[in-house]
């Protein structure tokens, strides 16, 4: 239907206002029109009725007179003396002036009479009415104007019987002044006629009905009807005018106060949408103030402010986001994404335009120490300063980016390798000579730089990244604070690539569960200590059945963050086996499990340990976790938290390779460890080298003073046992004491021993 189409359209409020006006005016107009029309109709009917009554009154009155006239003329015609005049008209005047006048006086209405012969001619020449009667044309009464008067005339036939038949003798014509009618009408109280105007020719009788029909009547109005009609017309006209005024007033008011403000609001909203809107002024409203519109205005203004604020914030955030997308928030320099994009562009120019560029992959040395010992704030500050240092050595056209952590990248566009080497070296020197001081504590910092040329020979970005990373690794691995320039067939890089290949092999080994747990006894030296303590060791079984020692894959695993996965595997499998051996062995053995530095700060590993202890119902006191001194120092805060959490359960900790790195006894005091496993290089020479023996003795003494028991590892021959015993070492471990064996076999043996007992 048509109104469905209508429903789909939207019209302005003014349209509905117009519709409202029409709908409001229409009934009022129709009602007024009908009422006034009815009033007119009633008045018209009344007037018509009045006219009809007037006509009837006139007709009645005239007919009454006419009847009288007819009677009189009939009387006259019947008079013998009248008929006698047709025989002898000598005394016609006597008849007319005396006899008829007597009759006229008697009747009071007759004005004059004349006699006419049967041919219509006046009986005498002394006529008053008309020389010629009109009996043929006018059979009945007629009205005739003579001079200024109107008369009702009638020519009454006069017949005589003759030979048994009536014979027309003549006519008696009589007239009656119609003023009598007017007087009669005027004298009537309820007459409907004010005035009668006969429309007649002079001296020519007109048939009575025709004369009445053509008479113009000034009809007396009926005051009550006219007053009623006037009241209705005036009332409804005023009603309509009032209604129209009210409607127009309200329409204008609504238009000015609602429609127009709404239009303004709509325009403001469009302006808001287009971003050109100003605040809607308080005087936006129309003639009257409408609370809802004011609420809308305030809401829109508020919305606009919020919108502007949000837009501004969003723009700022967007800019910030855009900045963050391509910049490092800490240093303000480009990030890896921007750097990669620039690098891709550089590669394109190298390939297409045969340009030469260079990439410096920079890794900060000692950053973790600063960060861990002085906090992140210090680390962040160091990064900023290093960025500034690096930036000071490059051109504006070059690009410096923080690639992540303590790694920076510098893209030297349009720069050959020699020049790039100069710039890289300058950067290294710049950083090296810079002393970072944090809370009066100076730090020597350095950077390891891997320099890679970017030429048309480069296959892709990935290759450039790998080469740069590998070169940087080589530089770092070569002793840090070095520059290593990538060269094809670089042996160091080959090793680096070998480590990279380990990542996939380790992942595959984990998936295929090809790791094997071994264990080695940690033997107590003090008499009476019957505890059995084993260190859990890890081997990787290759596809051909060969076992690979951990030093072959652990570095790669640590470098590529695979250690947490390996540690998880070790923890789960060790505790599961331990659970099994406990149920069979029933004895008390302790197991030491190595944890990498990456796992120490890993909350998931911590949770795994806790859950596994609960799952396998392991006495935490039977578990000891070994962490390297370097790992602990690199993540000292995390390590302290980690150690504290597990020690609170009863677990113990052993600090592995103590003395191999930057360890100090200061650090040791911060770490809640139960054992110190003295670095093997000292143990290996303890029998031959006095310094080693002194160091081991000192460590042992300090350990004991701190309540920490000492373990000497790498006891590779029996000769070492005596000096270690003499030094007071608590435990010894090495192939001279116990050759590592598969954990399953060890547990099986222990089960057999237990069962044999």
């Amino acid at each position, binding site marked *: 239907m048509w109104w469905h189409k209508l429903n789909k359209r939207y019209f302005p409020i003014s349209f509905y206002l117009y519709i409202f006006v029409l709908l409001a005016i229409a009934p009022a107009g129709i009602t007024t029109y009908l009422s006034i029309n009815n009033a007119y109709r009633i008045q018209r009917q009344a007037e018509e009725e009045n006219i009809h009554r007037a006509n009837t009154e006139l007709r009645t009155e005239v007919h009454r007179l006419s009847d009288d006239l007819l009677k009189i003329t009939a009387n006259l015609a*019947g008079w*013998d003396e009248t*008929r*006698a005049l*047709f*025989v002898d008209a000598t005394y016609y005047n006597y008849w007319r002036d005396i*006899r008829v006048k007597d009759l006229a006086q008697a009747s009071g209405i007759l004005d004059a009479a004349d006699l006419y012969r049967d041919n219509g001619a006046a009986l005498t020449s002394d006529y008053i009415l008309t020389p010629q009667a009109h009996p043929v044309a006018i059979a009945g009464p007629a009205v005739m104007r003579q001079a200024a008067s109107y008369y009702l005339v009638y020519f009454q036939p006069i017949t005589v019987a*003759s030979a048994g038949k009536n014979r027309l003798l003549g006519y008696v014509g009589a007239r009656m002044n119609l003023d009598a009618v007017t007087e009669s009408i005027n004298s009537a109280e309820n007459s409907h006629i004010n005035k009668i105007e006969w429309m007649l020719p002079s001296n020519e009788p007109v048939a009575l009905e025709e004369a009445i029909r053509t008479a113009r009547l000034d009809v007396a109005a009926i005051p009550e009807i006219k007053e009623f009609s006037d009241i209705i017309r005036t009332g409804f006209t005023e009603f309509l005018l009032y209604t129209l005024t009210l409607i127009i007033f309200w329409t204008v008011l609504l238009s000015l106060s609602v429609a127009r403000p709404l239009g303004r609001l709509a325009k403001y909203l469009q302006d808001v949408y287009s971003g050109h809107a100003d605040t809607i002024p308080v005087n936006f409203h129309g003639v009257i103030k409408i609370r809802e519109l004011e609420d809308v205005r305030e809401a829109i203004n508020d919305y606009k402010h919020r919108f502007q604020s949000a837009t501004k914030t969003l723009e700022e955030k967007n800019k910030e986001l855009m900045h963050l997308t391509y910049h490092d928030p800490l240093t303000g320099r480009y990030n890896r994404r921007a750097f990669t994009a620039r690098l891709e562009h550089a590669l394109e120019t190298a390939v297409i335009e045969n340009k030469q560029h260079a990439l410096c992959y920079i890794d900060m040395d000692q950053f973790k120490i600063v960060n861990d010992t002085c906090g992140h704030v210090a680390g962040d500050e160091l990064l900023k300063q290093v960025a500034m240092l690096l930036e000071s050595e490059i051109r504006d056209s070059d690009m410096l980016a923080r690639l992540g952590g303590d790694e920076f990248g510098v893209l030297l566009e349009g720069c050959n390798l020699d020049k790039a080497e100069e710039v890289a070296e300058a950067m290294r020197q710049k950083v090296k000579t810079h002393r970072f001081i944090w809370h009066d504590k100076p730090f020597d910092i350095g950077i390891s730089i891997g320099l890679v040329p970017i030429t048309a020979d480069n296959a892709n970005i990935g290759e450039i990244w790998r080469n740069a990373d590998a070169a940087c690794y080589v530089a770092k691995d070569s002793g840090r604070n070095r520059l290593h320039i990538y060269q094809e067939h670089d042996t160091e890089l080959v090793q680096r690539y070998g480590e990279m290949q380990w990542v996939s092999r380790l992942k595959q080994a984990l998936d295929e569960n090809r790791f094997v747990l071994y264990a080695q006894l940690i033997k107590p030296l003090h008499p009476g200590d019957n505890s059995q303590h084993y260190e859990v060791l890890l081997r990787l079984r290759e596809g051909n059945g060969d076992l690979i020692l951990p030093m072959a894959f652990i570095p790669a695993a640590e470098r590529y963050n695979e250690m947490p996965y390996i540690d998880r595997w070790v923890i789960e499998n060790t505790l599961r086996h331990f659970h099994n051996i406990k149920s069979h062995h029933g004895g008390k053995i302790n197991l030491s499990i190595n944890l990498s530095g990456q796992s120490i700060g890993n909350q998931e590993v911590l949770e795994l340990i806790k859950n596994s202890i609960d799952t396998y119902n392991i006495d935490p006191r039977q578990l000891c976790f070994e962490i390297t001194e370097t790992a602990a120092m690199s993540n000292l805060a995390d390590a302290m938290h980690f150690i504290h959490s597990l020690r609170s359960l009863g677990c113990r900790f052993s600090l592995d390779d103590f003395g191999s790195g930057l360890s100090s006894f200061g650090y040791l005091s911060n770490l809640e460890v139960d054992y110190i496993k003295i670095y093997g290089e000292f143990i290996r020479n303890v029998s031959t080298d006095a310094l080693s023996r002194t160091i081991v003795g000192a460590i042992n003494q300090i350990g004991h003073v701190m309540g920490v028991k000492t373990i000497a590892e790498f006891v590779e021959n029996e000769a070492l046992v005596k000096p270690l015993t003499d030094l007071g070492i608590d435990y010894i471990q090495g192939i001279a004491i116990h050759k590592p064996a598969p954990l399953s076999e060890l547990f099986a043996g222990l089960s057999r021993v237990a069962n044999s007992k």
Partner: protein
Amino acid sequence: MPLQQTANDMLPFSRYMSIAAVLCLLLTYALPARCETVTATLPSGVAVNAEYIVASPEKPAIIVLHGFLQTYEFMSTWNIVNGLSSLGYAVLAPNISLGVPDRKQSAQCQAAHTHTFASDLSELDFWADWLQKKGYKSLILIGHSWGSQYLLGYKVSRPKAPVIGLIAISLVRSHESRGVRQQQITLAKSRIKEHASGLQPYKLSFCEDFMATPQSYLSYAEWSDQKVLDTLAQLKHNQTPTYVIIGGQDKRSDSAWLKEVRARATELAVIEGANHFFSDAFEFELNDRLEKILHLIDAKTQ
């Protein structure tokens, strides 16, 4: 007086006759057989009419003459006609035209009167001839009031007319006084002399203002009381049976007049109690008298 005596002697019989007359009258009214209105035209061209009751020509026809300005339909005249209709006489009651064609109405005093007594008698001539042409050989004239003057004048002026008897009913004195009459006659005559023939009002009979020409007035005015008595005497002398009937209560009559009349008429019948018009029940008694008189006339003529 013998007639009066006879009438008194026959009183019981007259009662029976009255009853019979009433019955006859009723029959007459009910069945007006052979009663018709006839019209005719005078030689002057004026149409005249009369009520005519046909009867055998063996008997004399009776002409009943109405009073002054009246018609035969006037009550008294009409009663007479009705009374006669049952007696086997042909009766003709003409309306004297008075100059009015086919007059059927009583003429008004104020109407223009140009007719004269002579012209009225001429019409009587006409009807007499008309009856004779119908085969009636003799006529009896009955007149009421002024009709009596007509029959007196007619018989005197037409002595050869086949009139065998006259019955004058309510033949009374003139209305106007002698002085007035004489004065009017003088005036009228002077007008005639002056050729002033216009209408003037005269006191004549019951008319206070009889609008007439001098000639008209004089023609009627000459019929003074004395002329009536003289005419009666003349007719008596000529042996014309002239009977007079007067109501005893007729105000225009008195004993002197009755005496004068009785002295000159063949017979005078006075019906006691009756007025000029013999209204009420006196019409029957009048008819009885008329019947007796008619028998007397018949008897005399045979």
